């Protein structure tokens, strides 16, 4: 198949950028979106042009490194799919495809389609962990957890930290990302001791990073390659409200 790409090109963080048109010819419908870009980049390299920079790592939808705004949809038209797992059969021959980087003040462009998502790391550093005692691991069944809690915690833990939620959000809010971690740990016994302090510091960090406010448009849930539910945001706000009343101590 033959495609026309409109790709955001930007030489560096402070350089001006613009959309540039490329032809992608002889693309197999079985290629992934990133493989299609690889083909274009090979040609650009052969022609002496700078290849298009984009992030990727596992290419199997589990690491969260990839992430492109494709035709105005974070990770493209396929629901519950990261960019690396999107295949060219999702597009029709002759299609025009717009490819842009995640756009947010908290995700500055490094080059072309690659953005700096360390703001998400700093939100995790603010409390997205449990302070576990080291030593031999406990017997698996020593701590009982209700089945619904396990299911909801696991669904939230599926977050790969790609940042599509904030990219898709009309307010550039990272609420779904932060809420997924707060929900994951808040539903498990191990997460209880730090639960309310965690809500305060992670929410505080999210604001400091310059993300926007949640209007509950629901765009994040639709964009999420792991289909994490906006119910997590309800839980985050509940924990934050309670923590604000108790001062983070229980």
């Amino acid at each position, binding site marked *: 198949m033959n495609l026309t790409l409109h790709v955001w090109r930007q030489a560096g963080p402070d350089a001006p950028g613009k959309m540039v048109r490329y032809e992608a010819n002889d693309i197999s419908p079985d290629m992934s979106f990133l493989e299609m870009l690889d083909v274009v980049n090979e040609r650009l390299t052969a022609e002496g042009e700078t290849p298009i920079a984009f992030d990727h790592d596992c290419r199997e939808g589990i690491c969260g490194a990839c992430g492109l705004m494709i035709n105005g949809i974070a990770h493209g038209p396929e629901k519950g799919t990261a960019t690396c797992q999107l295949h060219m059969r999702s597009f029709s021959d002759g299609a025009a495809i717009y490819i842009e980087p995640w756009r947010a003040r908290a995700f500055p462009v490094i080059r072309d389609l690659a953005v700096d998502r360390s703001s998400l790391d700093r939100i995790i550093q603010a409390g997205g962990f449990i302070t576990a005692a080291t030593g031999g691991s406990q017997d698996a069944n020593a701590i009982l957890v209700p089945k619904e809690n396990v299911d909801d915690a696991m669904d939230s833990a599926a977050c790969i930290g790609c940042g599509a939620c904030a990219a898709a959000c009309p307010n550039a809010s990272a609420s779904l990302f932060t809420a997924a971690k707060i929900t994951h740990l808040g539903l498990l016994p191990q997460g209880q001791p730090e639960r309310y302090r965690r809500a305060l510091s992670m929410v505080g960090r999210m604001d400091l990073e310059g993300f926007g406010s949640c209007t509950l448009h629901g*765009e994040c849930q639709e964009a999420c390659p792991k289909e994490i539910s906006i119910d997590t945001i309800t839980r985050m706000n509940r924990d934050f409200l309670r923590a604000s009343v108790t001062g983070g101590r229980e």
Partner: protein
Amino acid sequence: MATGRGFYRSLVGKKIVMGVTGLIWVGFVVGHAAGNLLVFRGPEALNSYSHFLKSTGELLWIVRAVLVVALVLHVIAAVQVTRQSRAARPVGYAKQEHQAATFASRTMRWGGALLLVFIVLHILHFTTGTVRPAGSFSTTDVYANMVTSFRIWWVAFFYVTSMAALGFHLFHGAWSSVRSIGVSPVSADPLKKKVSLGLALFLWLAFTAIPVAIFAGLIG
């Protein structure tokens, strides 16, 4: 710790304030719509209801004070979260396709601004009688005030438009507020808004029926 100012300094805290104050207004608006529907039972019913409200004295002023404070907080928080959200995306997309956002959710800001204008004019019109589109105003005959005003096409039009804005604002807001506050139960399909659709339809129909019925000459 994050009590008091720290709570409000965060965007989540602001949204919780918006949710609570918004819900206070939802409660008022539902009662207001039900009361206003008495216009369909004739002048007696509406005027004696209005007389009853005014006879509650201090209680009436307490309710008014709560509503004014709630509105001021709601609007201040709305302006603040809107400004922070705008600043959060300095460079926009060349192309963006919404997957879940509705007309209602995307017009919360402009619709809210229209509601603010409406609330101010509405009080000057029916409560204080400062703005008199029909020329006359009676402090005792609310029924006559309604009928003379809504016979004027642009008055009826302004009310009908504003009430459409209220319907949209609450179709999204009644649903989002309980989520912002964190009291909504876990749901298999969180984007479904059945209850808020019913609420928004009821309020829109009730508030729109009055100016339309009067303008069409069905009552009065």
